[in-house]
């Protein structure tokens, strides 16, 4: 369970990036956060994995106020999350395998287990035959799928994705979104920031509309 309560965020420039945002995400939910550029989608996501602090407000994840977690213990929260970025953030000097394995190496998982889990994650995104390639040799869509495999390899409770289809054509975007759908069906909570209305219309279940940092409305589609 994720609860955001009256979140305000101001950067150094005047004006509020987020003002009074409150919403709840239940375990296993699939949420879209949408709105035009500059509406505060990315800021909200960054606050959720505590890359930045809100100016005001509280965030409860699994009954724990994450704003009170000391810096040196924040890794405990992040290990329960998988994060996908619009720019993929892959390491181009490492192979696909190593890009994904890094998440498990952090946890001290054995080499054998790492191989098994990385292979499974890559099979999920249908890239298991490109395990030993370098990201530079993959297409945009494939690179994004590697980023998704990295986010899910540790079976996180929460998946956060910031414009994961921003650089992809419609067909690939649908393919990627289907992947998130599959991951959600396996029990992970998924929160995706996107401004792609077509995707939201097709996959949207719960939607949070932001405009100039404020919650415009929340929708739940059946």
């Amino acid at each position: 369970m994720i609860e955001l309560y009256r979140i305000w965020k101001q950067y150094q420039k005047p004006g509020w990036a987020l003002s009074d945002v409150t919403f709840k995400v239940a375990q296993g939910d699939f949420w879209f956060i949408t709105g035009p550029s500059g509406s505060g989608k990315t800021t909200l996501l960054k606050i959720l994995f505590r890359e930045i602090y809100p100016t005001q407000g509280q965030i409860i994840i699994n009954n724990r106020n994450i704003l009170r977690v000391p810096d040196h213990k924040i890794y405990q929260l992040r290990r329960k999350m998988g994060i996908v970025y619009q720019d993929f953030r892959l390491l181009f000097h490492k192979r696909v395998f190593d890009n994904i394995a890094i998440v498990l190496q952090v946890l001290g998982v054995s080499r054998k287990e790492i191989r098994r889990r990385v292979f499974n994650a890559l099979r999920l995104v249908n890239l298991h035959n490109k395990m030993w390639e370098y990201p530079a040799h993959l297409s945009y869509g494939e690179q994004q799928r590697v980023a998704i495999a990295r986010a899910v390899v540790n079976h996180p409770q929460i998946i956060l994705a910031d414009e994961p289809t921003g650089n992809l054509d419609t067909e690939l975007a649908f393919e990627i979104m289907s992947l998130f759908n599959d991951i959600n069906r396996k029990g992970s909570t998924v929160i995706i920031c996107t401004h792609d209305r077509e995707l939201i219309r097709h996959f949207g279940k719960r939607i949070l509309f932001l405009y100039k940092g404020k919650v415009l409305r929340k929708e739940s589609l059946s």
Partner: protein
Amino acid sequence: MIQKLKYFLSDTSNNLWQHRMRNLFSITIICLSFLTIGIFLSISNNLQHLARQMSRNMAVVLFLDPGISDTAVESLKKDLTRSPHVSEVRFNSARQANEDFQEKFPDLRKIVENLGENPFPPSLQVSLHQKAQSSEAALNFIRSFSGRSGVDDIQYNREWAERMQSFSRLAQAVGFFLGGILVLASFFIISNIVKLNVFARKDEIEILRLTGATNTFIRTPFLLEGVILGVLGGILSLMLLFLLIRIFPLYLGASMGAFRDFIRFRSLSFSQCLSLILAGGFIGFLGSLSSLARFLKT
């Protein structure tokens, strides 16, 4: 734990190899810093050894009147031997002194021959017990002979030994001062090189942070890198020092003449070598730590 250790080692070695030119530069700087300290330590070691040897062989020489009678010599000998400070008294006749000189310095033989007479006086060579060598009482006892009839002059090399010891301390101080400055420089160089390495891997660090790596996990390969650079610099400086110690006497050999056998270049002791290597590692560790502190706040 073993998996993490394997990761750290492979990550560190990859990084060291990836930025090998940069790392080689920092090893060279550390090596030069420690070489400076090492050279001065070695000079100090040699001077100290020399001083010790001088005081161990500290012989007091009583130069006697050329015309001194055998009975007077015997009486002096008896008085000296009676003292608890004295271990041995040996008489050296004028003829014996002349022969010894000509044997040791054959090139100067002609000068002595041209004099037409033996310029060397007879002497009594007094060896002191080890404990008495630095005691004031022993010195006063020896000094008391200066007024005795038949005794012309007294010579002892304690002052030389003391002077040598203060030179040794000076060499050590200069070494630590110069070395200290260079060590400080190598600290900043390591710190900046690790900073460059951290910059080069900024993206990777970012990903590690967001995937739940602890700060220790992120820091360890960089700290290891600093320690390895420092230790390698220390080891290299010792190797160069040993090489210098081997080559230097060969270079000086021709000009050292009679002192050739007297001065033997000594390398550093095992504990000094170990301290230099450990200091290298420590400097590397601190350098890395200082550059990482700013990067890994959250």
